[in-house]
């Protein structure tokens, strides 16, 4: 029998250990950014659950896994086994949480941007206490590949979705009218010359016309991300407000960094970003983002 090791209290402070209702039992939260999990890691997780836990795993709403029913004295052993196999431990508390994302352009036919890749990059750079910053409260970030917004960007402290602006190359158009019936926003009508006319005020840059055009007459003018800030769930839900459009993937990382700086400077302890924005003003946040 392995002797119970003393628990590393410093490591425990970074979170990942969640006290269960039953005395002296904990759930161990794992760090699985964008919900992408290596099959080999899953086997290790399964073994640790059987060895130290009660054989149950919980799939969290933020694409994470928690290993339930680990007795206090086995926490360090469970953690050591996981980390030795490359499975990382998650965070709780006032920290930059594991980034979520949908599969995005690499996998989903609707994807406009590589949301999963962006999510992994953001997680790598900001996870935990980014740049040594103590955060006032938890901070959640997600990336969606398109306007369907499957991972709910407007419910996160900072959320992104892909978008694409279409441009018509009239010489390639055969006047079929598919784009007119495809556009769910009613932004396209066929003109008398059998060429589509786009109403920019109605267009939301979803790119459906580009995908549906049989002759590829609608082409991509520019692709990017829309950014939202201040969204949250909980007892007082609030949707994030748009702070930028057609942001490049590289600039998206800087948007996160800028918003974090704003939150660190302006946020009061225990208040989510949306509350800070409500107090300080959305315009002030926008002024400090993308400098």
């Amino acid at each position: 029998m392995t002797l119970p090791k003393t628990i590393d209290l410093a490591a425990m402070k970074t979170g990942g250990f969640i006290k269960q209702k039953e005395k002296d039992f904990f759930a161990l939260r794992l760090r699985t950014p964008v919900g992408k999990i290596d099959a080999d890691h899953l086997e290790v997780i399964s073994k640790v659950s059987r060895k130290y836990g009660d054989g149950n795993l919980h799939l969290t709403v933020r694409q994470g896994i928690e290993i339930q029913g680990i007795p206090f004295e086995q926490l360090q052993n469970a953690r050591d086994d996981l980390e030795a196999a490359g499975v990382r431990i998650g965070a709780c508390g006032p920290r930059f949480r594991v980034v979520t994302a949908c599969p995005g352009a690499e996998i989903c036919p609707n994807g406009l941007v590589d949301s999963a890749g962006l999510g992994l990059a953001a997680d790598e750079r900001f996870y935990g206490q980014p740049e040594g910053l103590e955060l006032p409260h938890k901070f959640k970030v997600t990336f969606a590949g398109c306007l369907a917004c499957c991972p709910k960007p407007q419910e996160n402290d900072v959320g992104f979705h892909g978008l694409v602006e279409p441009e018509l190359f009239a010489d390639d158009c055969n006047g079929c009218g598919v784009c007119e019936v495809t556009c769910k926003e009613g932004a396209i009508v066929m003109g008398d010359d059998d060429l589509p006319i786009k109403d920019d005020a109605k267009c939301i840059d979803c790119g459906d016309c580009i995908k549906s055009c049989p002759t590829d007459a609608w082409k991509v003018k520019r692709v990017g991300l829309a950014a939202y800030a201040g969204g949250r769930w909980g007892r007082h839900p609030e949707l994030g407000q748009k702070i930028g459009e057609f942001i490049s993937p590289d600039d998206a990382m800087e948007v996160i960094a800028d918003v974090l700086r704003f939150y660190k400077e302006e946020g009061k302890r225990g208040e989510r970003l949306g509350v800070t924005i409500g107090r300080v003003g959305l315009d002030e946040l926008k002024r400090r983002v993308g400098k």
Partner: protein
Amino acid sequence: MTEIKADDSLDLRGVLCPINFVKTKLKLEEMDAGSHLEVLLDDGDPIANVPQSVKEEGHQIMKVGKADGGHYRMLIKKA
């Protein structure tokens, strides 16, 4: 545009996605390259999905238009 005559037709009104596309695909497989198939599609999901799927199969959509009954007529040229 000069009117093209369809060589065959398929009435897919009341047929749900993705069965409507599968039927279109099977029909096109029986036809000769370069010939034309006309399909009737319902408004909503069918007209939003079927043209895109037909395009992905490599066929050409020559015309889509709204018919009197609120459904759509789509003319496809087999690749």
